[in-house]
């Protein structure tokens, strides 16, 4: 266990990275399928089935990344898990209800009597909305240090709206990739309409974070750190401009480059997330509890890590396989 020095240092660090990676993968993957759910009311009735079909084979596995992320928080940093989740008791409840409604109506809308379909479509949208809003709210509260004051809640309400619009954006660019024809044209329009949420969301969190904590301010605005970090905002700006130009010109002939907006959006999420991770490290509960203070015993972490080394590549492998089998434009979902 001592190959990389003190296991009480490198093990928490490794697990924080793994957890961070899971959250990022979750935000991108479930982000697009929550986003597709958010777009449901905008779609024509005959488009709704294809919207659902575009995420059908994936959403179960996408949500499993949330279980992994929260599971890693639970198993690697138990005190932090308790602190964060008791502070966010109510939004967690709303998110869970949203995820339940969503997952259930996903199945019900296809199996219940046809007269009930609008009801389940509505539940699918409502569930996606509750989950997105509460995740955005929790993000805002986390940035503000998990204390319930009026300004903090106000900020969290703003990030709730921004993340929701941001999810609808990544959902729309996913649809640009996975659909064609009239639905693809609609998706381009939705993506253009949703871009502001992404920009405002990333912008407001980037601006707010340094001013909540002097520690984070110093991490960003001191020399030479500011130099190393400058690619983050610059690249983000380039991606935004690229997305803006690309979306105005979409769709291209023969469906060329239809994957590029989704790739750019993923890159943008990743950059924003990296910035946040840099700001908060080494804290897992902002300015209260570091990953080193809250980590489980090294022996236990080591046991989990052993398994992770074997299992994670397999998970990634068969996830890729699944996306490969269901590649191409989304067709009607059939059990047979």
């Amino acid at each position, binding site marked *: 266990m001592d190959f990389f020095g003190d296991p009480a240092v490198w093990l928490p660090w490794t697990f924080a990275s793994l957890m961070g990676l899971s959250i990022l993968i979750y935000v991108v993957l479930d982000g697009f399928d929550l986003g597709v759910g958010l777009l449901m009311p905008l779609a024509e009735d005959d488009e709704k089935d294809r919207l659902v079909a575009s995420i059908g084979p994936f959403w179960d596995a996408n949500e499993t990344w949330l279980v992994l992320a929260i599971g890693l928080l639970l198993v690697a940093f138990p005190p932090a898990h308790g602190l964060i989740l008791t502070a966010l008791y109510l939004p967690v409840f709303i998110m869970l209800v949203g995820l339940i409604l969503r997952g259930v109506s996903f199945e019900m809308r296809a199996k219940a009597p046809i007269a009930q379909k609008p009801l389940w479509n509505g539940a699918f949208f409502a569930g996606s909305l509750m989950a997105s809003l509460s995740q955005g709210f929790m993000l805002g509260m986390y940035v503000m240090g998990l204390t319930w004051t009026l300004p903090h809640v106000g900020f969290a309400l703003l990030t709730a709206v921004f993340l929701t619009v941001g999810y609808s954006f990544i959902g729309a660019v996913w649809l640009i990739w996975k659909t064609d024809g009239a639905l693809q044209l609609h998706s381009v329009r939705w993506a253009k309409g949703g871009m502001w949420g992404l920009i405002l969301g990333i912008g407001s969190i980037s601006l707010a974070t340094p001013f909540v904590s002097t520690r984070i301010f110093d991490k960003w605005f001191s020399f030479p750190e500011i130099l190393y970090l400058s690619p983050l905002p610059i690249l983000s700006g380039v991606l935004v401009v690229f997305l803006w130009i690309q979306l105005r010109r979409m769709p291209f002939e023969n469906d060329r480059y239809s994957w590029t907006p989704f790739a750019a959006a993923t890159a943008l999420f990743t950059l924003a997330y990296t910035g946040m991770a840099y700001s908060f490290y080494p804290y897992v509960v902002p300015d209260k509890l570091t990953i080193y203070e809250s980590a489980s015993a090294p022996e236990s972490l080591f046991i989990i890590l052993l*398994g992770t080394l074997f*299992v994670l590549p397999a998970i990634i492998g068969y996830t890729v396989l699944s996306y490969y089998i*269901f590649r191409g434009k989304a067709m009607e979902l059939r059990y047979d």
Partner: protein
Amino acid sequence: MDTLLLSRIQFGANISFHILFPTITIALGWMLLFFKLRFSATGDRKWMDAYMFWVKVFALSFAMGVVSGITMSFQFGTNWPGFMETVGNVAGPLLAYEIMTAFFLEAVFLGIMLFGASKVKSWVHTLATFLVAFGTTMSTFWIIVLNSWMHTPQGYELIDGVVHATNWFEIVFNPSMPYRFVHMMLASGLTVAFLIAGISALRMLWGDKGEDVKSALRVGIIAAAGLIPLQILAGDMHGLNTLEYQPAKVAAMEGNWETRSNVPLVLFAIPDQENRTNHFEISIPNGASYILKHKADGVVPGLNDFVEEDGTIMHPRVSAVFFSFRIMIGTGVAMLLLSWAGVVMLRKYGAGNMPKLPLIAFSAMSFSGWIATLAGWYTTEIGRQPWLVQGVLSTKDAVSDVPAGMVLSTLIGYLVIYASLIIAYMGVITYLARRATRGEPLTSRQYPRGGTTDVPVLQPGK
């Protein structure tokens, strides 16, 4: 009501709702694999029709299980932060292994199993079905390991009030794990056997004469009749194991207050914890001594041994454990009688000409597995109180300090949603059965038995 009791009710409500669906998917996964393998072996279309009907039930149950399971992983933190703070070093790795070895396997291959039948080769589809079934079983294994460790902890040491793992083999193979795992797997098998038999019987009552329905009915009845004696045996062995490690639980199950020999088997009573006695007792002399010690004068522990000198009660609430246990046993006996009578009927009439009465009985028992499973879990989980981890952590020391009003309002929210979803779930299953009965095709495709597919997606470039 205080935060502790409300949190217990809330966790109980969430986990009760959750367990309904894995109980179905664990065994239904294997049943679907059986249908698929029968189809591959015989080429008889009825097996694929049965597969196509039940895979929809599986998909629905799986989705309900996933979303209600996500709730569980958050509840540890929101309601029971003391649990992971104290035993996180043991519970953590076990939960991590469950997520990594089971959840992803199930979730990813589920997509291929459900929607891939025409996209991949037949053997790949069969393999995906196997991996999903295997995943649900792995998931059962890990969660039962953790749950059993909470009943019979070993392989750890306490340092400053925090549990540290010392021997993982002892932790995984703790004394009650093998019994609980077998008991739960059989419970799942029985739940699915009665569900399949019951829904098939319902379709026959509605006039469905399909070959797939007859075969499903036959498979359901035979599976039920074969599994129930095994379950009774496994349950008895599990009980003896509990007697050894958690005597207070067994005392509550038997409604026995004093440690003594020649203890009667109490068939019915109203336990009175305040006066520490039973009212309206109906019992068989020496019965409990026979069952637990295999002799008439065997000494059976009593509840009064678990009251400390200052009056602190260290045994569970007797009536809850006592009645849950009897509901489980009662349902089990009904399952035994009906399934064996069903086998006799099958031999006499064949699956196609079953009289109405047994068909009605099987339909009525469609969800009996749920009742027995829930009652069994209540017996064992309430029976562990006041401990959360037997002898290590008491439940009241693990609860969060969230205001009671918050716990109550979210509890009401959960209950409303769960009640409506259970109604919707059972409604949709009956609706699917009715639609299948009307002869609306579940599928229009011809299935390849192996080798070829009509949409060769796994070949790049096409």
